[in-house]
């Protein structure tokens, strides 16, 4: 039993825990290495994503408000309410996108 390469068969938990530990240490090192490379190019996409996410929310809200207006002939009000709600939707889109990204980042860590 003095041989290090020989697994300790009498105590399987210990051997597995040791293996698990070595594996996670290796993986941790590898992930840290990976993170160095995917920093800058991701941020470009993230910025673009927040921008469109917000813009589109407002646009869709205003469009729906306008469509309701032209359907019921109530011109300014639907557009106003729609734009406000669209503003909310755009903000929520951004919050949701940020949450997703930070979740993914914390899962990678």
């Amino acid at each position, binding site marked *: 039993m003095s041989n290090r390469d020989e697994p300790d068969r009498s105590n399987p938990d210990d051997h597995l825990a040791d293996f698990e530990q070595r594996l996670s240490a290796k993986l941790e090192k590898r992930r840290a290495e990976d993170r160095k490379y995917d920093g800058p190019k991701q941020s470009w996409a993230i910025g673009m994503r927040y921008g469109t996410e917000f813009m*589109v929310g407002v646009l869709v809200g205003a469009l729906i408000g306008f469509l309701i207006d032209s359907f019921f002939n109530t011109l300014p009000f639907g557009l106003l309410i729609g734009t406000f709600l669209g503003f909310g939707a755009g903000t929520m889109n951004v919050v949701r996108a940020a949450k997703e990204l930070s979740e993914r980042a914390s899962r990678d860590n």
Partner: protein
Amino acid sequence: MADTNPIKQFEIHEVAALEIAGFDLAFTNSAFFMVLATVSVTLLMALATNKRALVPGRGQSIAEILYGFVADMVRSSAGNEGLRFFPFVFTLFIFILAGNMLGMFPYFPLGIEGIGWHGFTFTSHIIVTLTLSMMVMGIVVIFGVYKNGFKFLKLFVPAGVPPVLYIIVTPIEIISFLSRPISLSVRLFANMLAGHILLKVFAGFIVMLAGAGAAWGIIGVLPFAMVIGLTALEFLVAFLQAYVFAILTCIYLNDALHPAH
């Protein structure tokens, strides 16, 4: 002087006329590049995987890395259940990637009178990207309703909100949901359009400076350096936007699988 119009690259030209029941369904250069993307990807994949070696060669490695890359993406965003959509996401990703990359190559033989050889990026047309994103949303809605029934509507009624606020929160959620296909398509389209226009504008400067005669041609080195840099950036954007489209598809499919968030 050479044509330096930066918008000209997005023009649609008819290759072969086709009319069915009064609709103009002509085969255009856009369609040509879509067919080219599909055929080249299919051929590459078939060639790369036909050996099925235990120790992969170069081609097979690329195919396996691509497969693993997309499978990881689907699994991490939509869980193991999401893997049933793997073929869809993989096709979408590789189609957009091939389209973006083909757009980076400026000369393809296409026998149209007065045009001849030219390049074209079909992802720089919003109707193409909108169709792709509508396909995604169609699958999300149809599969979501098929799997969850009325529970799919929980998507619009988030838990943990005081009942009074539902008057505001539900319309916001609906607008947020409706904005998804648009943000998905606009992002891809805008990136490709802006990048290619920028590329063409700076390339146009070189031609203009060269045509101005005398010492002006020497200054043309500056926009030339810019074009080289932009080309590298465009290759990055071409990959990145295909990736973003695919990963957002996965995230939306996750909503169809598990609507209560």
